[in-house]
């Protein structure tokens, strides 16, 4: 059933080619002027990180709230698909669709930046893992939200707060609470790899990102029936 949901989400994405192309083009239009402008690496990497994170979180939360509001989650809940395969299938599909749509933008960043080839090669799996985190967080954001407006607000706030904690906007003082938060932040790896790609090698490894992917997946699986029930009730709230 996870495969069925995964296939459905891809079919829905491909069935709307204009939206699909727009989703690939808009990040590209944002990235090209920054990449060609010679913007300092810390500034450019911060913009890229914001774009990748918000793209993933919004792209997961907003359609899920929309489906909840129109009763589709309730309908899915009446089938034999099950909460876990539905949410996992949707998250997997969302992650891969986001990756394909962001590939041109990431390609431009990698092509124009000055970093080492090793850093550039590592950027692809790091972005995939980050998109998995954003898509999983998007499910939780959708469950907390009671409307599309709330979903947009929560997506932005959660994404920007976690990016701030990851050090994307400032470097925390060593030994401070901020430094501890940075060490545990899911987007630290993204921030570091984008800096490294830009020629400022600070990559310290992505173990915390893998921990976030694993823990968020486990929590989402464990809470899937409750999440589905909450999402289905969005229709009546």
């Amino acid at each position, binding site marked *: 059933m996870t495969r069925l949901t995964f296939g*459905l989400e891809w079919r829905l994405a491909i069935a709307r080619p204009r939206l699909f192309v727009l989703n690939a083009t808009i990040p590209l239009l944002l990235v090209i002027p920054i990449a060609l402008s010679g913007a300092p690496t810390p500034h450019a990497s911060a913009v890229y990180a914001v774009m990748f994170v918000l793209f993933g979180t919004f792209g997961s939360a907003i359609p899920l709230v929309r489906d909840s509001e129109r009763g589709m989650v*309730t309908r899915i809940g*009446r089938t034999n698909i099950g909460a876990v395969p539905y949410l996992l299938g949707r998250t997997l599909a969302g992650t891969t669709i986001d990756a394909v749509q962001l590939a041109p933008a990431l390609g431009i960043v990698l092509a124009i930046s000055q970093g080492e080839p090793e850093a550039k090669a590592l950027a692809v799996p790091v972005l995939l893992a980050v998109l998995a985190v954003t898509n999983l967080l998007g499910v939780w954001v959708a469950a907390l939200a009671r409307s599309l407006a709330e979903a947009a607000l929560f997506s932005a706030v959660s994404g920007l707060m976690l990016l701030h904690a990851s050090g994307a906007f400032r470097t925390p003082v060593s030994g401070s609470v901020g430094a501890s938060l940075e060490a545990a932040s899911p987007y630290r790896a993204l921030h570091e790899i984008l800096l490294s790609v830009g020629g400022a090698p600070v990559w310290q490894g992505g173990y915390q990102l893998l921990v976030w992917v694993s823990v968020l997946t486990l929590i989402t699986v464990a809470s899937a029936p409750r999440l589905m029930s909450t999402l289905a009730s969005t229709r009546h709230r």
Partner: protein
Amino acid sequence: MDLHLKTGEIVALLGPNGAGKSTLLRLLASDLQAAEGSIETTSRTDGSADTTFADDESVHFDALSGIDNAVFFARAAGLPADKARADAEALLHRFGLSGDLDVRVSEYSFGMRRKLLLAEVLAAPAELIALDEPTVGLDPQGRDALAAALKSKADEGDLIVLATNDLEFATRVATRVVFLNRGTVVADAAPDELLASVAGVTRFEIALRRSLEAPVDPPQGVRLMSMGERLVLETDSGTAVLPAVCEMLLKAGAEVTSIDVREPGLAEVFNRLTGDTLAP
């Protein structure tokens, strides 16, 4: 409320708006949890009765075609890909959608979306099929297809429960009628048994331009059922009393806009049982 529903039945839940028909369906479909009381199910198979439910809204994946939607929901119900497609195509053909299989659902009319929903629900293997207002938006062909499909499902041993205000359809397909009023069961019997209680009765429904100022004295053998701008009379003497009824109206100075002579149906049964009106 205490109901015992058996497999192979087509049960029509009838009653005015707010009677509890849709709530009962949603409870049966596990969309709602009962605040008190319980619903117990026994199964032909593994002890849990699978339920499929079509509510009064048609929710689909609008960007996909009708056949893609139907196949998805059939597979989501557990059917293998080949059978899902074959069953979905057969049901869509039955509902007259063969020519629109590959058309996007966003281009479907309201009635076509209702037919698609019913095809999706009926394609799912289930022991309990719950349908809320299934005939809304259906053309005569769709009603015929639905009636045939429900009878076929019931013959296979499925239990079908439908909530409807369509008394003609309920009379046509139901093997059992449950009248609900304000959350309680007021009658529970086969349609023929219920109709037998009003057999031989003829009803005159007379629409007036304005209500009569004074009460009327009905002719002998005629019962006055309700007053107002819609005068309702009943008799056991058939249409033979119609001239006397017309004379009564003339004497009363009534301005008649129409006279409807009706054989009594389930609406009259409900009216007799509760004193309330059910949509004809």
